[in-house]
């Protein structure tokens, strides 16, 4: 069956991949196949046992698993083929993929491939935390899968590290399985997620410690305690049987990193910045024009609804591309606009390219930026000659979305550079 010609392959059956598939079918593309490595499609929401999901897409409030099933049903009804338990292990130039499943290894290809592999959280190793390496140090995603998919618990009294949105949903996940977090700690002076979720731990009776840094993990076989340090550099030990490392999302861009696609990971003032996902233009098109990307792989991190919408849009632009309607070629350097960041306080700007000629009616309307810390000032976009193309006053915090209209950056231009900085 797989030997028939496939028009579009979508890697990853999460909200963005499935909505891209639906959109492609609705645009009349004949054969659209989603490859999903898990036993069920649906992506991260499969194990987010809490509401609200689906407002934007279905005008209804679902829990994550209900929402995931609804997405799958919608895609199947639209004629999207979903192959589960199928992993893409290598992406080769021109839309050729090496795939493995219980049937063994096969090479398949399509005219276009959409990468929709989502994000994961940063594990303990990449956060470089001192101490022993006992059982019981997990990310929220692993906890959620254990609790909601397997009905098991990895610990009973964890310390939660981080205060992003996901950190608060982790408290709910814990409650669901009778797990009682002993503390929630945050290195910064304020909660990362927007108020009023900051009140949530108090309501759930989890002590919240701001200005508190995780120093080391202790324990032989299992976690026994963590050592933390406050702003006055005083250290103390909190007894616990687990450490939940939440957030610090990073795109699951393995295939791109180990393959031929360009990754957005520039060094800015000695620090690594960038989305960590593939470099794309305003259509989500990668450095190999046979590949597109959609959803949270593009950048950490947005909601399911946002990712779903992005999938839908990229699906439409891929359909346009197959019909020969998509302008420009991101491979042509010089004639396109390259967006870079010149200030390490800026975490990333996505898309990283604008393919010309610019068509206002098509493509992402905004460049999305994020910052590594709270920042006040003026956000400036200059061209290669230092001429200010666009500016706005800025007063934002870590992980908050800032949108800059693409139209404001491209007026009467024929390529070159856009550099973002904060003054």
């Amino acid at each position, binding site marked *: 069956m797989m030997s028939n010609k496939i028009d579009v392959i979508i890697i990853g059956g999460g909200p963005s991949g499935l909505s891209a598939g639906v959109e492609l079918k609705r645009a009349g593309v004949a054969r659209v196949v989603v490859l999903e*490595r898990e036993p069920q499609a649906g992506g991260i929401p499969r194990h987010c046992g809490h509401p609200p999901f689906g407002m934007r897409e279905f005008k209804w409030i679902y829990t994550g698993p209900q929402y995931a099933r609804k997405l799958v049903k919608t895609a199947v009804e639209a004629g999207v083929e979903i192959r589960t*338990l199928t992993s893409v292990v290598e992406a080769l130039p021109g839309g050729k993929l090496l795939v493995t499943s219980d049937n063994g290894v096969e090479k398949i290809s399509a005219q276009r491939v959409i990468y929709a592999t989502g994000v994961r959280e940063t*594990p303990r190793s*990449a956060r470089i935390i*001192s*101490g022993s*390496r006992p059982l019981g140090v*997990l990310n929220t995603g692993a906890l959620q899968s254990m609790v909601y998919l*397997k009905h098991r618990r990895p610990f009973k009294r964890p310390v939660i590290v981080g205060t992003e949105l996901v950190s608060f949903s982790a408290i709910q996940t814990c409650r669901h399985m009778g797990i009682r977090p002993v503390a929630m700690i945050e290195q910064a002076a304020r909660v990362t997620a927007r108020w009023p979720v900051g009140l949530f731990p108090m309501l759930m009776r989890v002590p919240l410690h701001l200005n508190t840094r995780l120093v080391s993990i202790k324990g032989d076989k299992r976690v026994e305690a963590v050592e933390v340090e406050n702003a006055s550099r005083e250290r103390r030990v909190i007894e616990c049987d687990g450490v939940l490392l939440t957030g610090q999302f990073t795109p699951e861009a393995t295939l791109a990193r180990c393959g031929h696609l360009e990754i957005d990971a520039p*060094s800015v003032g000695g620090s690594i910045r960038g989305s960590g996902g593939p470099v794309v233009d305003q259509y989500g098109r990668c450095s190999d024009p046979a590949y597109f990307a959609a959803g949270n792989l593009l950048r950490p991190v947005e909601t399911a609804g946002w990712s779903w919408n992005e999938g839908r849009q990229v699906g439409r632009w891929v359909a346009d591309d197959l019909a020969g309607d998509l302008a420009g070629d991101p491979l042509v350097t010089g004639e396109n606009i390259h967006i870079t960041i010149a200030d390490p306080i800026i975490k990333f700007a996505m898309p990283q390219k604008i393919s010309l000629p610019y068509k206002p009616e098509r493509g992402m309307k905004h460049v999305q930026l994020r910052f590594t810390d709270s920042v006040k000032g003026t956000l400036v976009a200059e061209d290669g000659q230092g001429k200010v193309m666009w500016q706005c006053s800025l007063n934002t915090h870590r992980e908050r979305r800032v949108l800059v209209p693409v139209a404001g950056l491209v007026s009467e231009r024929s390529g070159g550079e856009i550099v973002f900085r904060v003054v």
Partner: protein
Amino acid sequence: MAVVEKASDILDGASKANSAILHTGFDAPPGSVELTCIQDGYREYREIYADMGLVLEETGAFVVGWSDEEVAKLEGILAKAHGNGVDDCSLISASELLRHEPSLADHAKAAITVPGECLIDPWSAPYAYLQQALDNGAEVFVSCTVTGGEFEAGEWRIATSRGSLRTRQVINCAGLYGDVVDEDVLGVTDFHITPRKGQFVVFDKAASSLLNAVILPVPTSRTKGVVLFRTVFGNLAVGPTAEDQDSRDDASSDKAAIEMLIAAGVDKLPGLANMPVTAVYAGLRPATQFQDYQISADAARNWITVGGIRSTGLSGALGIGQYVFKLYSQSGAKHPAIADPVVPRAKVLAQSGPRDWKSAGYGEIVCHCELVTAREINKALSGPLAARSLQGLKRQTRVTMGRCQGFFCSARLAEITTGHFDEPLSEGDDDE
């Protein structure tokens, strides 16, 4: 013949973390037992690896001088290598080095080539050695700690945490506890172990394309330097540190050391700057006050001590086996060779090998980053060497050793391993 192991899984001591380099012995102490064992071990590994399905990546190594002080030492290192019979080493210029290793930083000044240094799988090889012993009639007792013993009328009665064992001959290979076991059973020890910790940082697989050979440091008076090496699993690692400590078990890592390693790595291989860290680990070398292995026989008491196998034991293992067998035979013991020994096939975990996910019928992929199948996991959870801890399962299959470190597969893994581990990954409401 029985192997008695304190931990629930083998390779839980010094062998749990090393650089996985099969050394030629070019820089080993001349005339040492260590040199003999490394070179005999190296030779035997090359003879058997193909039959046992073991991996051998012939990468070679460069000992790189980064400063004038280091360059001044290269001649001496070369002379030592030649003296140790490693004749194919030679001195090369920085430009020739960069031709072989174009991603290396351009402040490299000169290097010695050591073409014979290779990469191997540090766990599949010892597992295969033990599997061969088991297939040919040996037994293994895990979670079994030797606590003492009596020697009487030519026979040992060894006390263990699981009861007593009677045997004619004992070989003490207790690694970081070699001196302790000698003392507990014989009442004396000839050496004292001072564990020397080595921390490593492992970079994302994408980094492995930055390097071909192993990049070895020139030890100077100030620093021992760190090694940059690829692994057969497709990663690139930097390490190890060398930190003396008292604890024989504490292989914790610390942020300052890891950040130092990352900085050292980036300094020598600038492309590492934007590579994510995949893993951080540490191992303990069973170092002693001596500059050599401490292998000796107490013929009167049918006891052989194999101690202080400090930083080359993976390479030396098969040679140590030969050396010990000679000692054992000298005491008059005789065994006919096994007529037609069973040769098992090792687990294939090397990225270049015929990994399980490449052949049909594996069920599902459980660990996505390292592409570990349900079939492999179920196999590793059964038989006499069944994994009884996550650590053991990691060494046998590589589960959770990739970039997500269990984000995606922990739940499925907790489910599959329920009932198998002494320390379970999770509990359910229905568990006992």
